C-alpha cells in the first residue's frame, strides 16, 4: 500500500517534485516518524527537511501536529509555514 505525498513552496523545490506515491514501512506511525523516514531517502529530502520543527503537515488537507498518527491518510501535504494574505 502506498501513500500520496504532496510538497509545496521550498519543500517542493528542494525535493524536486510536486508529489509522489511512496510505500511506508510499518514503523512509520506518526507525522514525526514520516519526516525522519523521508530525511533518510536522499540528499534532496535531507536538504528539504533539515529542520523538521519548521515543517507543517496536513493529512487529508487538514493541518495536524507532528505527533499525529498517519494511519488512514489518503494524502499528506508537507510544506513550510504559510505566507499568504
Amino acid at each position, binding site marked *: 500500500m502506498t501513500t500520496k505525498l504532496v510538497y509545496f*513552496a*521550498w519543500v517542493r523545490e528542494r525535493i524536486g517534485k510536486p508529489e509522489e506515491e511512496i510505500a511506508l514501512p510499518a514503523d512509520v506511525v506518526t507525522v514525526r516518524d514520516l519526516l525522519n523516514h523521508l530525511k533518510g531517502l536522499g540528499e534532496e529530502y535531507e536538504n528539504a527537511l533539515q529542520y523538521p520543527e519548521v515543517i507543517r503537515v496536513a493529512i487529508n488537507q487538514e493541518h495536524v501536529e507532528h505527533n499525529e498518527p498517519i494511519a488512514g491518510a489518503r494524502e499528506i501535504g508537507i510544506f*513550510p509555514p*504559510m505566507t499568504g*494574505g
Partner: protein
Amino acid sequence: MSKITLTIRVQAQDFDLQSEIDALTAGRKDIGAVVTFTGLCRDEQGALSALELEHYPGMAEAEMRRIAELAIERFSLLGLTAVHRHGKILPGGNIVLVIAAAPHRQAAFDGASFMMDFLKTSAPFWKKEHGAGGTTGDWVAAKDADDKARDKWR
C-alpha cells in the same frame, strides 16, 4: 432568521470590490456595516518584478472556509467573502480580498480582521519574490508578528 452569505474563492484573475460587495448585500436591509480588506503587492524599493503565489488546491479553499465559519459564528456576521489570488502578481496588484458584513460596525471590523489574521497563518499559500532584474528571489519568510496578531484572538 437572517440569511448568511459565505463566498470563498481562489483564482488567478483580479477581483472587483464593488461587485463583490453588491453580491453580498443586494436585496438586503439587515446589513448596516460592511468592512473590506484588500491586500496588495508592495514594492517600496523597486526591487521586485512580481510576487508568485503558490497554494495547495482544495486545502486552501477548505481552510479559508473553516476560518470564515469561525468568524461568522464568533461575530454573528451576516456575510463573509474571501477571495485569494494565485500565480504572478505585479507590484500594486491585488492579492487578497476579505469582506465582512454585519448589522453594526464593530462586528464587521472584527470579522474582517480575524479572517485576515487566521488566513495569514493557516491558509496554505506561499509567496515567492521575483527580482526586478529577472532573478528568481527567495520565498518570503513567515513573520512572528503574524502569529502574534492571530494569538490576540484567543
